[in-house]
Structures are given as C-alpha cells and as structure tokens.
C-alpha cells in the first residue's frame, strides 16, 4: 500500500502539509467506519486504501463490517435497486428480515467512534445505538429518483444522523440534517491507475489479440444494461462507416450474474462477426484494465445511469479524450468541450467519437485538461482532505471556521 510521501511528486508538498495540519486537529478523536463487506465493491476498495493513509496521518481510524445472511443481503440488494428507481417487490417480511439482522448487528458491534461513519443502507439502522457521539451516513447510491416506500423506511433512520454525504448534487434530497457533497476518488498509485511501461501495455494487447494498427475506442464496464454496451456498438458501427477503427468492450464480474451473462450474449450478437470488435469478459485484473485504457485512442462511457462513473476519472487521469453520457457524477468530471465531450444518445456519441478520432490536437487538449481536472479534484488526497473537513465540520455550525 502506498505511503503518503509517494503522493508528493503528484500533488506537491503543500497538499501533504494541509493533510497533516488537518489530521493534527483531529487528535484524540476516533473515527469508526462501518460497512457491509471487507472486499469487493467500491466502498471496500476505497476504505482499503484510505484507512492506512488515515492511520499514517495519526487519525485514529478503525473499520468494522456488519454480518448478514443470504436473506439480509437479498433484501439490501432489493433496497439498492429500489433506491436506483427500479421497481422491486418488497414486502413486510423483507423489512422484518432487514430489522432482525440489524438488531443482531446492533447488539454485537462495539462502538468506539467519537465519529461513527456508516456507509450505504445495509448498516443504516445501527443509528439506534447513537449516544452523544457524532454519526454520519454516507450514501454511495444514486437516490435522485428512489422508490418511495424504501426511501421512507430509510428516512426514519437518516433523520437521526448528524450529517449525510452524497456523491452528486443530483442525489441531494430534502432532509432535516446537514448534507455534504463529497465525490469519490481514484488512487493514482493503485494498479488500475499507476504508470505502465509500453512493454506491459503491449503484452496485454497481445494476450487479447488486439493490434495497434487502427485507432481504439474502449468502454470499460461490467456487462449491464445500464452501461449500454449495445448502444456503444451501435455508435461504433456508425463511426466505422467513416473511420477504420476498432472497439474494446471490457469488463468482469458477470459470471455469477444471470442478467450480466444475458447482456454479454446480446452484446456479442450485436457485434456479429466484426473482427475489430473485442468483447472481453475478464476476471478482475486492474493492471490489464489500466493497460487497455492506456492503449486506447478514445474512451467511451455511454451509461444510461451511473452512481458516479469513476471509469471516466480513470481515463482522464491517463490523459485520454473521453466521450461520456451526462448522467450521475459524470458531468462533475467532464465539462463539455473543456475536459471531454458529453452526450445524451447513440447519435450524440457517434458524432463526438468522430470528432475526437478526426481531430487529434483537439482530442489531446481535452485529455490534458481532463487529467488536470482529475488531479485537482478527484484524487485520493482530495478525498482524505474532504473526509477530515467533514469530521471537523461536525463540531462547528458556522460557514467560516478558523482552525
């Protein structure tokens, strides 16, 4: 795991000085993160990298995970889908199962935190153990258009927290507690984002039988309808009429997801026999994803819905020009025509791809701007800073705070 000093060549000494100064002001406070899984998923991924950095900063941080059986996680999966606005059959028995496991966790969990930081809906009911300490609810989900029944159920817990955190202003609900905007981040030193040698990139291309003789358009995402892989192929097919190029659709995690396999098959079918379309169903391999992004001419993220869409930040960090849908947190990462191109349809994506493939200087400039924007706003060091400011804000009500 990277040490704080290793970020200095990227963000500069001043940023590290600020982090240390903020950490100093949290001396004596214990921060306890609680979520539902130690591995897998975005929350676990970011906590895995952030917790050691907080500890290096001497911010006393611990991370606990709740327990739950299949039934509990079936219900929380339904909650997750319903919060995203998908119709789900949720009955009284589901709510009862959720509460039963929550009460078990409530009684088993030890609460050390001066600040208890609850991630996502799974552990939300633990708030009933709140004493005179501070509790934060971190919502990583798109709740811009949630199912009302589930939202009202969760609202009864949310209203008891001291503060809530959302990833995009779009997700901000009307709630009676303070709410903050904190975007997720990428780690520039992780396997997914660190610099790679040409040799490594070429080895990965060879492994997947991809030649560098034509421009490469790439979308990295799991095979999920909300990522619209079929729409990506449609856009590529339109572009291909004018520009000889190739397409990579790469993602993993679909093998245990029946719907994912179906979407993968539909995508294969749409691609037909085109040898320039590379559909890669890959196991989790961050270095390979990194290499595919770095080998690409243009990155596309044509999602129909996104929690945040960190693949956009990953691509921009690599200086790549990006075409992406204006959904979820993507407009925070791309200002149209300044740091990438936003689109709303297959036709829009097609036009943007043609523009970037035909105008290499423009594409290069967007990529450079994009990298700078990610450096200033979406790296893990900014995330550490925001979390510490959030913790400090719990002890101040005013808008200008002297530390």
């Amino acid at each position, binding site marked *: 795991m990277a040490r704080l000093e290793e970020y200095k060549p990227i963000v500069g000494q001043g940023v590290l000085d*600020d982090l240390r100064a903020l950490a100093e002001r949290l001396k004596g406070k214990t921060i306890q993160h609680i979520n539902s899984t130690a591995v897998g998923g975005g929350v676990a991924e970011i906590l895995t990298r952030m917790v050691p950095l907080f500890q290096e900063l001497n911010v006393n941080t611990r991370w606990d995970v709740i327990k739950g059986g299949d039934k509990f996680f079936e219900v929380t999966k339904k909650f997750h889908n319903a919060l995203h606005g998908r119709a789900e059959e949720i009955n009284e028995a589901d709510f009862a199962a959720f509460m039963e496991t929550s009460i078990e966790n409530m009684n088993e969990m030890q609460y050390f935190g001066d600040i208890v930081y609850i991630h996502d809906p799974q552990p939300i009911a633990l708030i009933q153990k709140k004493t005179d300490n501070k509790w934060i609810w971190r919502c990583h989900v798109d709740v811009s258009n949630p199912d009302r029944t589930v939202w009202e159920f969760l609202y009864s817990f949310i209203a008891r927290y001291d503060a809530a955190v959302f990833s995009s202003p*779009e997700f901000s609900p009307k*709630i009676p507690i303070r709410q903050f905007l*904190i975007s997720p981040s990428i780690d520039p030193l992780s396997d997914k984002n660190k610099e790679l040698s040409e040799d490594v990139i070429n080895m990965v291309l060879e492994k997947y039988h991809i030649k560098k003789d034509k421009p490469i358009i790439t979308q990295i995402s799991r095979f999920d309808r909300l990522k619209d892989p079929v729409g990506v192929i449609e856009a590529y097919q339109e572009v291909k009429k004018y520009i000889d190029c190739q397409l990579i659709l790469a993602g993993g995690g679909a093998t245990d997801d029946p719907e994912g396999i179906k979407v993968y098959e539909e995508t294969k079918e749409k691609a037909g026999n085109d040898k320039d379309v590379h559909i890669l169903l890959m196991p989790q391999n961050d270095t390979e994803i990194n290499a595919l992004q770095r080998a690409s001419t243009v990155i596309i993220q044509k999602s129909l819905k996104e929690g945040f869409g960190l693949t956009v930040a990953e691509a921009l960090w690599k200086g790549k020009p990006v075409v992406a849908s*204006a959904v979820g947190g993507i407009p925070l990462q791309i200002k149209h025509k*300044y740091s990438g191109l936003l689109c709303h349809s297959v036709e829009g994506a097609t036009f943007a791809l043609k523009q970037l493939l035909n105008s290499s200087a423009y594409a290069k400039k967007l990529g450079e701007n994009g990298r700078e924007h990610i450096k200033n706003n979406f790296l893990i060091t900014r995330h550490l800073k925001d979390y510490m400011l959030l913790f400090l*804000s719990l002890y101040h009500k005013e*808008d200008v705070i002297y530390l």
Partner: protein
Amino acid sequence: MIENEIKKAMEPFHFYTRLHLSELTGLKASNLPELLGLIKDAPDSAIYHHTHRFLLQHQYLSPEPPNDFAYWVTSALGDDRLGEKLASIDTMKYLTIRDLREKIIVTIESYLKAYPSSAKRFASENEVFYLIKCVSFIMPTAYIANDLREFVEILNKITIDSIYFHMFEARLRLERKSNDFSLWIESSIGDKDLADKILKLDPYTFTLEDLRKTLIQMVTKKIGKNYGQA
C-alpha cells in the same frame, strides 16, 4: 550582499490557507424565476460558492466561465444573452457578498422584465441547477515571510489555496476591502507602489497558477529594481 539590502517588514506576513467543503441544500431550480428565488433566499456562503467555485475547480480554464449562474443560464437554459450579462459582472467592483448578490438579482430581474419569454425556458432533467453552500476552513500554514525576498520564495511553493485565500476570500468574504498581500506590503514593507499594483490586478481574469506567476514577477521585478537584482 543582497540579503542585507532587503528591507525587513515591520510585521511578518503569516501565510494562511483555506480549504472548503461543499454543503448541499436539497434546493434546485429549473428555470430563471426559480433561480432568482434561490439567489434571493440563499445564504452568503452559497452565493460565494457559485461565484468562486470555478476558480478552484477549473484551474485550467481562463477566464471563462467565471460563475455557475452564467454557466448554467448559457448551457442549460440556452440563454446566451443573459449568460453574457452575468458573466461580465465585475466581481472586483463589489466589496461584500451582499453587494454582489444584489447585482446578480438586479441583472436577472431587469432581464426578465425586458424579455418576459425568458421565464419560459426550462433546463432538461439532468441539467437542473442545485444550490450548494461553501463551508470554509481557515488555518495558518508554517510559512512566514519577514521581507519581500522570503515572501516571493514562499509564493513559489505555497498551495494555490493559500494564494486564493489571501487574494479572493480575505477581500470579499471576510470584507477586508483589499487583498492581504497589498495590505501587508503597504503597511509593513511601506511599498505603496507595489501594493497598489497588486491591488489593481483583476485576479478573476487569471488562472490561479497564472496569478501566482504574475505576483512572483511583480515582486521579483520590484526587488530587482530597488536592490540591484537583474
């Protein structure tokens, strides 16, 4: 030796920094009358956020778009004429957020009166304006300048957040009327000429890195002129 010739400041300059956290309000606007209502009722910290956010978050853009209101009116409502009016509000003219807010309100109200149909433009669902507040945390850094030479050395390495604080936030949000650098150079170094030159800069038309470079050039030139440096 040049060191001996540099004038010592009567009081050292303590560099502070300012870090910010965005606080959501759950309030939003889809058209101009709704935006106007938000601006009228918003706390100062929200007006400050939406007129200064771009400076820190889009450091590579210079100088447009200068504020969220202008950007949103142009890009989401497609109203270029009002967008231009809002973009060209001279923030340097206003000494308080209250005055700046009043100017924005008057600009939108006059426009609605002149072009009533502009009230009927709506933003699409994913281009709604969300009102956000800025919570500022101000803290001292370890950097202290005792003279202009030390001052320029620190300007080279301090974060842009610190430069931002002393040039923008101190003047408008903390209502100090001038930027902190000019105040110190005039009162503690006694160099009114340099203080005035920095005061005359319109920092809103620079990227923050360009502003840093300009400040360094101005101070370096002054040291050279007064103390025989090239």
